[in-house]
């Protein structure tokens, strides 16, 4: 299980740094990692319409905990916080059985052939749909490995997981992703 308690990690400082230094650091981290957090949230299943708001919430969490986060480990903190927020969005949507965000299913189902399915925005929609079908823990690892091109060792450190756990989740996530992709292509090919 991915640690969803980013707030409890990397606490080593009790004294808050000066305000100007904090703001400067926050600005730097925001500039460097905004895109990473936004796209991570999307890949973790946060709808496009909510992604910007949730991204701001992730950075707001960082701003509140900045004094507790070791310099250089902000990206890891942000990703774990993003996982936490995305999991919350998932739970909320599952409870409400949200019907106002059909973006994941529309494009793949309307493809007329495999080539159509793999073109541009439709490909992204398909990929989001495939990610949606992964176990959430597998997904958190899959995204970092396949899309952020991090190594398993780096992922293990970022998520504070044993390397074997990361390898296991990645293997099962990749298998599931490939299997679902083939199914989708087969359906589109037979259409």
């Amino acid at each position: 299980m991915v640690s969803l308690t980013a707030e409890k990690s990397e606490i080593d400082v009790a004294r808050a740094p000066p305000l100007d230094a904090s703001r400067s650091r926050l600005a730097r981290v925001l500039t460097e990692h905004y895109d990473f957090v936004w796209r991570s949230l999307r890949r973790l299943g946060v709808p496009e319409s909510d992604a910007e708001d949730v991204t701001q919430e992730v950075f707001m969490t960082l701003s509140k905990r900045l004094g507790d986060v070791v310099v250089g480990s902000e990206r890891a903190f942000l990703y774990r916080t993003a996982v936490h927020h995305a999991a919350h969005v998932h739970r909320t949507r599952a409870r409400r059985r949200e019907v106002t965000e059909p973006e994941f299913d529309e494009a793949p189902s309307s493809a007329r052939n495999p080539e159509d399915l793999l073109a541009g925005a439709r490909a992204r929609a398909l990929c989001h749909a495939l990610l949606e079908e992964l176990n959430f823990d597998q997904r958190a690892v899959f995204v970092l490995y396949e899309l952020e091109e991090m190594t398993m060792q780096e992922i293990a450190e970022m998520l504070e997981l044993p390397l074997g756990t990361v390898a296991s989740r990645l293997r099962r996530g990749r298998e599931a992703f490939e299997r679902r992709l083939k199914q989708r292509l087969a359906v589109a090919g037979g259409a």
Partner: protein
Amino acid sequence: MEDPVRFCDGADESARQLMRAMREERPPAGALRRASLALGVAAASTAVTATGSATAASSSFFQSLGWLGLKWLSVGALVGAAVSTGATLVAPPRSSPRELEPVAHAPTAVAASAQVMTQPEIESPPAESPTSAKPNAARPPAAAATQEVDPTPIAPSVGALPSPVADTLAREVELLDGAREALRRNSPGEALSKLDGYAREFPSGRMGAEAFVVRLDALVRSGRSAEARALAERHLATNPASPHAAKIRKLTGLGAP
């Protein structure tokens, strides 16, 4: 333990195409800037981005934002400072927010550019104030179900930014955050109640457009979709170019224009 070959480098062309397509996904234009403002680090972000040419970038930044950008920076800085220091936001006197805001009507060009960024596009009855009194000021107070906002272009008066403006905006942000938080807890009724409070306190609030979107969301989640849709249709009829149009349509299930 060896890393497996990634899909983007593997033999499966389909998987490669998907991975490539995913990497083209980007945040919407202006998202980083909006986050900088929300976090109160816009000026610092500009400096970070403009390594080596901070002065020019900053100048361009302020030019593009106009004076109203300064107002937002002030608010953002206030919120950001409060957050990062754990301080409590100081709410301004609530009896008459407009009285606290020495609003000047800017030249048309400045006002227009400022409006693009912050001025809610929803028509509203303005609260009476020495500087924005209008013949139609006798219109009824903002109804709970019709979030209305003053269409008057707003720009700060020349000179120092008055801190009460920042205070009132911080208060608006605070109230809206409360409504959003209620929505996140799946309490749309509470969110609507908070939005009503916001509308009472800021009948001509600068966050009116955002409040309107949150209200639509809350109405839909409360099972009042028809009401939300009617509000949305009315709003989009008068504001077809609203920056929130896509979100409003999605929330309420309205089709593309």
